[in-house]
């Protein structure tokens, strides 16, 4: 039914969005690529010429690189593990018949709407502070020595804060997926005498696999670039310097643009690998 006329009109209507996003993607990325092959120190001499792949090599051979990869992996995998496991359990619980389900849902979802700087600061000061934090009071009540969370267990603390922010997202998506499960199938299995654990393992979990994959991919993309949580808590000290934070420090704090840009290109490549998987799933859904 689309005529030649309406097709060119459609193209015209798409043009602003496509051109803007193309510019937003290409211009800065080209600049980053350009800087990554230069020795460029705006505060100390400016543009000092081309250096080939020097920055790329120096970025991965610097002593800060591997710790930052470890920190990134611990945070991403830790948060994914916690949010998916507890998300599944919580989604199953919320799917059960109960009183006040709507209110519980609201309570569970709330942390997702708290801005990252607020949640990081509230956790840092009011819960994890070794003198006045609630955890310190709690520990003392049991006669234990309060833990200096953000220095002694820094990575774990960050994982905890970020998991709190993302658990609602995982729960909400998994709950939506669970609700589309045909309950007759579960009933039939129950009547045939399948115990609860096998009903979960053979019916619920396979049904959720797609939703879990989506949660993992989307969260990974966001988690790879968490920033504010580290910025307001540890500033990257005590082993919490992630890849994102390392690049940020190279670029804005030490103003070594070439080195930071090379790191940026690594981050782009990493994110794209994740993106390819996500695209496949989303793209498949588009055909259906």
């Amino acid at each position, binding site marked *: 039914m689309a005529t030649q006329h309406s097709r060119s009109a459609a193209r015209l209507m798409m043009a602003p969005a496509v051109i803007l996003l193309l510019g937003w993607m290409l211009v800065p990325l080209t600049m980053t690529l350009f800087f990554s092959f230069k020795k460029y120190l705006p505060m100390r001499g400016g543009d000092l010429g081309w250096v080939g792949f020097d920055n790329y090599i120096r970025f991965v051979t610097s002593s800060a690189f591997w710790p930052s990869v470890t920190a990134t992996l611990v945070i991403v995998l830790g948060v994914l593990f916690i949010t998916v496991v507890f998300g599944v359990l919580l989604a199953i619980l919320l799917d059960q*018949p109960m009183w006040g389900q709507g*209110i*519980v849902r609201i309570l569970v979802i709330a942390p997702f709407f708290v801005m990252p700087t607020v*949640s990081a*600061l*509230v956790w840092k000061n009011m819960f994890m502070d070794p003198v006045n934090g609630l955890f310190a009071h709690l520990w003392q009540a049991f006669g234990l020595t309060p833990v200096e969370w953000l220095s002694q267990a820094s990575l774990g603390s960050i994982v905890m804060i970020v998991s709190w922010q993302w658990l609602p997202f995982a729960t909400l998506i998994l709950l939506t997926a669970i609700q589309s499960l045909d309950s007759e199938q579960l009933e039939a299995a129950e009547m045939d005498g399948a115990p609860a654990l096998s009903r979960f393992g053979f019916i619920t979990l396979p049904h959720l696999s*797609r939703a879990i994959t989506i949660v993992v991919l989307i969260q990974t993309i966001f988690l790879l670039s968490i920033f504010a949580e580290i910025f307001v808590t540890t500033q990257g000290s005590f082993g919490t310097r992630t890849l994102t934070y390392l690049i940020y420090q190279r670029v804005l704090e030490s103003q070594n643009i070439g080195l930071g840009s090379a790191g940026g290109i690594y981050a782009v490549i990493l994110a794209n690998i994740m993106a390819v998987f996500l695209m496949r799933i989303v793209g498949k859904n588009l055909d259906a």
Partner: protein
Amino acid sequence: MARSVTTQRKIINTAAAWGIGFLIFFPILWTILTSFKTEATAIADPPVFLAFDWTLENYEVVLERSNYARFLWNSVFIAGGSTLLGLIIAIPAAWSMAFVPSRRTKDILLWMLSTKMLPAVGVLYPIYLIFIKMGLLDSRIGLTVVLMLINLPIIVWMLYTYFREIPGEILEASRMDGATLKDEILYVLTPMAVPGIASTLLLNFILAWNEAFWTLNLTAAKAAPLTAFIASYSSPEGLFYAKLSAASTMAIAPILILGWFSQKQLVRGLTFGAVK
């Protein structure tokens, strides 16, 4: 056939769910409670939960001292402006992709999504440089445009999934009845599209309000929104728990309320229609 549920089981479910819900919500509740305490009560050991002298003093101090209104206005301007701007650009695009799809529509949609996955830190310096050169650093306009661009793919996607649910037969029927293109858009399509547009607006307002990479790195004193205002409490000033709580409560309250209305759209918007 509904499964018969014993009352006992329902009670256990209810208790467990409410307990966990309370635990998850507790940090927010605690922040709100603390905002009504004096600084001394806020750090009292053992902690005081409800039996304290409620005071509005912290709110008064925060409002007086920190020019809170300006940060709030910056947040509203940046989040609202970027969402509206995004909608103006995305509505025609999503519209044409949903109603006049071509062979390339799917590729364009996926490509748009892929721009969303570009890690911000990878383009931090170029954007910073462009902002300095154009005099946009610490300006609301610059930040509005950046936030519009990072959320544009989500806006297009959400609108697209909503528009696609509008049945094409209705258009044909209205054409048979002699409706012109203008009638078609104004009286047939628009009313059906409004709910989708409203949910898109809501979710993207929330996302822009909470954005905390560009808002922290591209603003200083003038254009800083609430995210940056709160981050300024990470200095020793943050030791004033009651005031930090009051400032935090004011920063998150509007979004909590909006967010609770947008639960359903959240799933759809953030999974790009892959989970409904």
